């Protein structure tokens, strides 16, 4: 039996004093940072006065009722958005396969190649889709093409990361078994890696598709096609009832996509 170190000492807290100190320091730092950045952005709670809520309300009521007469225009652009998202997601889905294999440390043992791929993907994910769109519009002119390119790069970053992580977590034993029975690298990937990651792959691709539909609301603002284009126009004309038509229809479509992809995902696992 282990003897207590000191029987008469009664603990004073629920966590050790060291842990408590650490927690308090972290809390202090985070709150300190918050206060500092609030000051830098002039984000005082005192600014939430009656006027604030009145103004929000005044803006908000202008959204109602949505102008349903405008919905055929919205549908047109939304279909374009969906097409863009579909094409971009598909291309990104194909492109991400080599990238995610190269960025999985259980497949690629060459440290240099692995790190370079990882770094490339990381950098790609840091670029906001808006900049991508601005640059591609600069290169190819206004339209859906630069939008699709921006979405491809944007989703490639996300997809390759998610899938390389999935590959890194697969069961390595079947790979060894296939190798032990004389399979070459391609056969190992096809017979042991692909079946293990396929469901996740489809699931992530659907997820990225949904993200792409949402993202194209932004792209249109800089001329990269899709629903954002008319959103900008309507905001510029201060036609908020048309704006809310856009929002409502987009919402409904996103919900439908969400529903369908959940169904598909549920079937896969």
């Amino acid at each position: 039996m282990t003897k207590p170190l000191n029987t008469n000492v009664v603990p004073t807290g629920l966590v050790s004093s060291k842990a408590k100190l650490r927690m308090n320091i972290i809390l202090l730092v985070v709150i300190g940072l918050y206060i500092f950045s609030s000051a830098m952005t002039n984000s005082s709670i005192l600014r939430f006065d009656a006027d604030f809520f009145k103004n929000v309300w005044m803006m908000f009521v202008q959204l109602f009722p949505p102008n349903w007469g405008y919905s055929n225009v919205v549908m047109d652009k939304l279909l374009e958005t969906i097409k863009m998202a579909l094409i971009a997601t598909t291309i990104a889905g194909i492109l991400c396969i080599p990238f995610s294999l190269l960025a999985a440390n259980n497949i690629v043992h060459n440290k240099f190649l692995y790190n370079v791929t990882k770094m490339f993907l990381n950098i790609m994910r840091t670029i906001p889709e808006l900049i991508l769109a601005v640059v591609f519009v600069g290169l190819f002119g206004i339209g859906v093409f630069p939008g699709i390119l921006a979405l491809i790069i944007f989703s490639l970053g996300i997809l390759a990361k998610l899938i390389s992580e999935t590959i890194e977590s697969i069961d390595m034993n079947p790979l060894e078994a296939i190798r032990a029975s004389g399979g070459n690298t391609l056969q190992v990937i096809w017979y042991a890696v692909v079946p293990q990651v396929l469901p996740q792959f489809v699931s992530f691709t659907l997820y990225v598709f949904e993200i792409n539909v949402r993202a194209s609301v932004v792209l249109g603002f800089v001329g990269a096609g899709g629903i954002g284009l008319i959103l900008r126009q309507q905001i510029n004309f201060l036609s908020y009832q048309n704006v809310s038509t856009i929002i409502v229809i987009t919402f409904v479509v996103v919900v439908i996509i969400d529903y369908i992809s959940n169904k598909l995902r549920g079937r896969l696992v």
Partner: protein
Amino acid sequence: MNMHVPPKPKKSPIKVVRNIAISIGLIALYVWAFATIEIPWGRIFSERTITNFDRVIPKLFSPDFTFAEKVMEYMMETLFIAFTGSFMAAILAIPFGFFAASNINRNPFLNTLGKWILNADRTFPEILLALIFVVAIGPGAFAGVLAIAIHSVGMLGKLYSEVIESIDMNVVEAMEANGANKIQTFFYGIMPQVIPEFMSYAIYRFEIDVRASTILGIIGAGGIGTLLVISSRNRNWDEVGMILLVIIIFVSIIDYFSTAIRKRIV
């Protein structure tokens, strides 16, 4: 050797029909998408694209370093906006998360309502939120903070509710069996289970918000997006290059630390 291999088991006809229908649907979807998308290939593969490349690419990759100071200034503002906004969202999302978690809010109607509110919030364009807050509070960083905060609540609330739905409810039962009341159960049984994940997601969201706050520039709600919009309108690609460089460096650093911190938390 007997060469006979039993045939594959027949799938039920309904399944076969369904699979065929799905395949046809998918093929039709792709044909539709690729056939009807309006891409002016002629224009894209033209002299003009080449001159554009000549004009844009060299400048993009030789960033204007005299512009660096100004970019840094705006980048810092972006960081402050993102941090303040994410922090506010991290707190605001807690009640929404609990409201939308089916194991806490057992009223199916209210629960579904909660999930829909969060979903609608995520779909509401950030740009419009920014516009509303510019009107309500004036142009500047605070409007951006609010837009980021409100928009992030949608995603964080959803992630939080998923965390809450995955907690060990037996622990909650054990607390109840102790004679603890609801509030005590909340603080002793539920919060310790969810706090680390909440923090991890909040940090993750901060990472996203740094990138997302670029969008605010479109409407004048502060941040580095303002510069981006102006520089690109002026076709100052060396300035855009500088903005891009600064964003890549900052986001990479944040990415690195946030991953390290999140690994330690959970």
